């Protein structure tokens, strides 16, 4: 049976910017201190004439037509059946084309090996039925994994404050603003 495309689903309204996702990712993948596959950015917006901080947690968006795979001369990137864009670091030659072309700054080549690295949606965990480290670590439950089709049918947004969808079709989806009473677990993928 064909696997369904997976996406990160994020609720910006309830994110408190604690960076637990960022730390969990860094710890789980044993990254060097300066490397973050997942980052949390803060934005200031005006709501009802009041200044308010909103947060955006972002990593690789596992695009449908990933530019990283398109430009990689070593063909180190592959797109799995479930839409996850995987990087084979053994194949990476560190040219940096992927990092330069990714509009979301999701790829880094900083590090001891000078090779590209990015979020793999913790495929090794997903494949054994566990949630990614960032999703598990979020104390507010604002980050989850969802089937992209299901998210789209449920009216999830493709853009949010600080994030614009580009022509490479990022898979990340966002809860619509001010939707209340939604039973979130209905939309979470059963792994």
């Amino acid at each position, binding site marked *: 049976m064909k696997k369904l495309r997976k996406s990160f689903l994020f609720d910006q309204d309830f994110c408190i910017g604690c960076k637990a996702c960022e730390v969990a990712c860094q710890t789980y993948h044993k990254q060097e201190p*300066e490397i973050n596959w997942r980052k949390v950015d803060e934005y200031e917006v005006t709501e009802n004439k009041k200044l308010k901080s909103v947060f955006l947690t972002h990593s690789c968006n596992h695009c449908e037509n990933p530019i990283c795979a398109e*430009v990689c*001369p*070593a*063909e*180190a990137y592959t797109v799995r059946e479930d839409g996850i864009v995987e990087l084979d670091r*053994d*194949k990476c*030659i*560190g*040219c*940096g*084309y992927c*990092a*330069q*072309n990714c509009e979301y*700054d999701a790829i880094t*080549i*900083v*590090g001891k090996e*000078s090779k590209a690295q990015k979020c793999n949606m913790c495929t090794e965990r997903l494949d054994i039925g566990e949630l990614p480290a960032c999703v598990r670590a979020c104390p507010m439950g604002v980050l989850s994994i969802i089937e992209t089709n299901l998210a789209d049918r449920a009216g999830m947004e493709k853009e949010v404050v600080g994030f614009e969808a580009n022509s490479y079709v990022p898979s990340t989806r966002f809860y619509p603003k001010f939707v209340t009473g939604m039973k979130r677990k209905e939309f979470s993928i059963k792994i």
Partner: protein
Amino acid sequence: MKTIKAYHPLIMTTHKFILIQTITLIITGLPFFSKTFSFLAYYVGYPASIVLKNNEALVTGLMIFRTLHWVSGFLLAITSLIFAIVMLRRLKELSIWPEKWGVEAIIDGIKQMKLHYIENKPAKFGKYNMGQKASAWAMYFFVTALIITGFILVYKSANAGALSLRDAEFIGTLHSFSFIMLGIILIIHVIFALLPSNLPAFKAMFQTGEMSIDHVKEHHIYWYERLKKQKIIKDEIEEK
């Protein structure tokens, strides 16, 4: 046949060396320029991967190509530097400066080229015509740009955090743009060098280093006059 030394041995050697380096640089750079040329890396990488037993033909090919590209670039930079230092001492004698300056001289230069290349009539040239001089300057410029941007890119590869991604992208784009421009100029340069009317110059550059005085008088009148003024032609005849 009375001849004159047309090219200094250093120029001939450097020209041959630069030719080899440029071909190597183009071939080894193409798989990084566009994935359309990945097959080149496969050709080299496949036998190498069998020897290395790593089953990664493309990656092995790319690594070999990149090493060759860096080494060739380094050698080209060294050659160009030595050439530039030696030539700077003879800057005024070089034939890459215009015989005359100004708009009228440019219009006349174009007219002379049209006479020679299109109408096949005798034209008034120096050692090089206006097109050759312009392409020489363009080549100097783009080779310099390629060497400088190339060194920055190598430095970036060795120190991943040395440049921001946007700066690295900008330098990479400049490197690619300079390569495209140089490629176009080189194609034109080779086509013109292989024209029958340029055969004596071609032979002089790659074989003898000398050109017949009759040919110089007929095709490079300004150069002939300059040599006569400098009494070089007379000296050459006496030597023979």
